[in-house]
C-alpha cells in the first residue's frame, strides 16, 4: 500500500518545496512508495485527506493559518515540518522583534486590510513528529525522513554542528584561521557545509545544533570584532525565536 502524502505551505518562500521537487532521478523510486495526493505546486489534481504523512512548509502568521494547520494535523498520521519557517518561524520571524504595525507599514501602502500576527513555528499550535531544519533542508534529509516514516524507524538527521561537515571536506577554518564570523560552531549540520566549501562563512541557516553554547559563541564573535548589534542580527536571521537563540536575538 502506497502512503498518501499531502504537501502544504504557510508563511514561507516555497523554497523547501522547490528542494523537494529537485527529486528528479529519485522520483520513480519515490512514487513506488507514496502517492502525492495533495501537492498544488506539483499537480492540480488535488485529493482531500486523510493523509499518512503531511509535509508542511512555512510558519503560522494568520488566524486562518491556525485553523488550517489544525485541520492538517487532524487529517494526518505523521506530520513533518520542513524548513526553518515551519520549525522556528524562519526568516519571516525577523519581524517578530518589531511592532506588528511597524512591519506592516514598511511593506504595504494600506496595511489596514491585513490580518497578520507574529510568525510562529507550527509546533506552537500542533504536534510535530519530524523536524527538518534548513533553509531549505537538504533533499537527502527529506528522503531520509520519508524512508524512515515508511519503515517506522527514527530518521538519521544530523544535529551536530557544521564544523563536523566542514572537517569532512577539510575546509580551511574561517573562524580560527581567518577570524571571520562563521556560525558553524552553533549551527546544525545537514547542508554538507555548502557555504564554507566555497569559502563563505556559515550563515546559520540550519538553526541551532543539538546543544549550542550560545554564550561562548557570542564571546567568540565579539573577539573578532562584531558589535552586539551584528551578533544579534546573526542570531535573529533564521531561528531567532528558537529556545536557544531567543535571548541573544532579543539583545
Amino acid at each position, binding site marked *: 500500500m502506497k502512503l498518501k502524502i499531502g504537501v502544504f505551505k504557510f508563511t514561507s518562500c516555497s523554497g523547501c518545496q522547490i528542494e523537494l521537487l529537485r527529486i528528479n532521478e529519485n522520483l520513480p523510486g*519515490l512514487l513506488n512508495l507514496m502517492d502525492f495526493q495533495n501537492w498544488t505546486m506539483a499537480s492540480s489534481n488535488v485529493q482531500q485527506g486523510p493523509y499518512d504523512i503531511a509535509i508542511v512548509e512555512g510558519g503560522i502568521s494568520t488566524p486562518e493559518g491556525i485553523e488550517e494547520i489544525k485541520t492538517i494535523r487532524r487529517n494526518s498520521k505523521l506530520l513533518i515540518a520542513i524548513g526553518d519557517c515551519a520549525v522556528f518561524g524562519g526568516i519571516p520571524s525577523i519581524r517578530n522583534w518589531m511592532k506588528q504595525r511597524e512591519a506592516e507599514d514598511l511593506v504595504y501602502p494600506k496595511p489596514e486590510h491585513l490580518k497578520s500576527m507574529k510568525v510562529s513555528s507550527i509546533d506552537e499550535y500542533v504536534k510535530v513528529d519530524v523536524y527538518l531544519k534548513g533553509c531549505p533542508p537538504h533533499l537527502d534529509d527529506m528522503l531520509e525522513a520519508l524512508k524512515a516514516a515508511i519503515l517506522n524507524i527514527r530518521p538519521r538527521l544530523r544535529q551536530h554542528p557544521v564544523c*563536523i561537515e566542514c*572537517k569532512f571536506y577539510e*575546509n580551511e*577554518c574561517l573562524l*580560527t584561521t581567518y577570524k571571520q564570523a562563521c556560525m558553524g560552531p552553533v549551527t546544525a549540520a545537514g547542508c554538507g557545509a555548502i557555504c564554507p566549501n566555497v569559502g563563505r562563512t556559515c550563515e546559520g541557516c540550519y538553526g541551532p545544533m543539538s546543544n549550542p553554547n550560545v554564550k561562548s559563541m557570542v564571546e567568540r564573535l565579539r573577539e573578532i570584532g562584531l558589535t552586539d548589534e551584528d551578533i544579534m542580527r546573526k542570531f535573529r536571521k533564521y531561528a531567532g525565536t528558537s529556545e536557544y537563540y531567543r535571548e541573544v536575538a532579543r539583545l
Partner: protein
Amino acid sequence: MGEAGAFVAELNDLQRLLDEFTKHGYTVYGPIVKGKSWVFSKVSSIRELDLNYTRTILPPKKLLHPVKNRIFDFKLNDGFEVFESCNVKNIVIFGIHPCDLRAIEKLDEFFSQHPEDVCYEARRKRTLIVGLTCNAVDEKCFCNSLGTGPEASTGFDILITQISDGFFLVEVGSSKGLDILKTLDLAEAKPEHFEAKRKHIEHLKSSFTKTADFEGLATLAKDKLDHKIWVETAERCLSCGNCSMVCPVCYCFDLYDSLDLTLKEGVRIMELDSCQLLEYAEVALGGNFRKERSQRLRHWLLCKFGAAGGSTYTSCIGCGRCIVYCPANIDLTEIAHVLKGG
C-alpha cells in the same frame, strides 16, 4: 636511524622518487598549500609540495581511516546479502612529520587488535610512508615534550630530512622503502650528513616555545574528575568537535545504514565521529551517558592524557592541531598544567 641504509638526494632526486612511486602504481599524496593552511592532496610533482609546511588541517589518518567510508553494500531479499568492498588502492603518503608518524603507529596498533578492522589493514598494507623531519617548529608544536618528535626513528618506509638548502638525507625504514630507493642510484650518506641531521634536530629541539608535562596524568586526571577546571573550561567549549576531528589519533567512528528508495538495498557507512557531540553517547530511548558539555570535554582530555578506554592508543602526540582549530582557545597543555597543580 638509517640502519637499513641512507642516501643523500637533491630536489630533482626526490622528483625521481615520486616518478618511481607512480611507475610502481602508487598514487602519491603530500602536503600542499590551501589558502593559509595545508592539506594532504594528490601530487605528481615535487614542486607542488610545500616541504616547509607546519601542519595539515586533517592528519594523515584521513587516508587510512577515511572520514566517510562505505564498508559494504547489502541486499534484503529473503535473507540478508552482504557485499564487502574496502576500495583499497596503492598510495604513498609523502612528507609526514614525526608526530604524525607516531600517530599512524598508534592507529596501526589499535586497528590491528582483535577484532581487526580489515579495511584499515588492507589500506595500511598498500600504503608507503615517507616521513619528513620538520624544517621548523611553530608556537603550537610540543612533540618535544612528549617524546613523539622532532626526531622519528620508526614508523616510516623512507625518512627525508633537509640538511641544507635543497639537499636531503634519505634514510631507509623498511625493505619496501629500500627497494624503491635502490632504483634511483643515489649516493650513500656519509657521517657528515648524519652529523648535519643531528645538528638540525638539536636546533629544532631548542626552538620549541610550547612545553607540556603529561607525565603521570593518566592516573592523576582520573583522580581529579571533580576538578573545577572541567566545568570552567566547558563554559567556553562550543562542542564543535574540531579538536577530535583534526586529532591524528582520534579514530572514533559511527556506523549507519543508508537504504535506497527500493528499501531493499543499501550501504553501511563508517563515518568519523566525535565524543564532543551530544549524540555520541546517546543510547536508546534518549538516554545519554555524557549529557553535560563538561563531561564530554573531560572525556576527550582524559583520552588525550591516556586515561580513557582508548588508553594510550589515543593519547596526544603533540601536533598542536586541536589548539590551532579550537574556536574557544582551549589548550590541553594549559589544562594539564592546572591538573598538575601549576
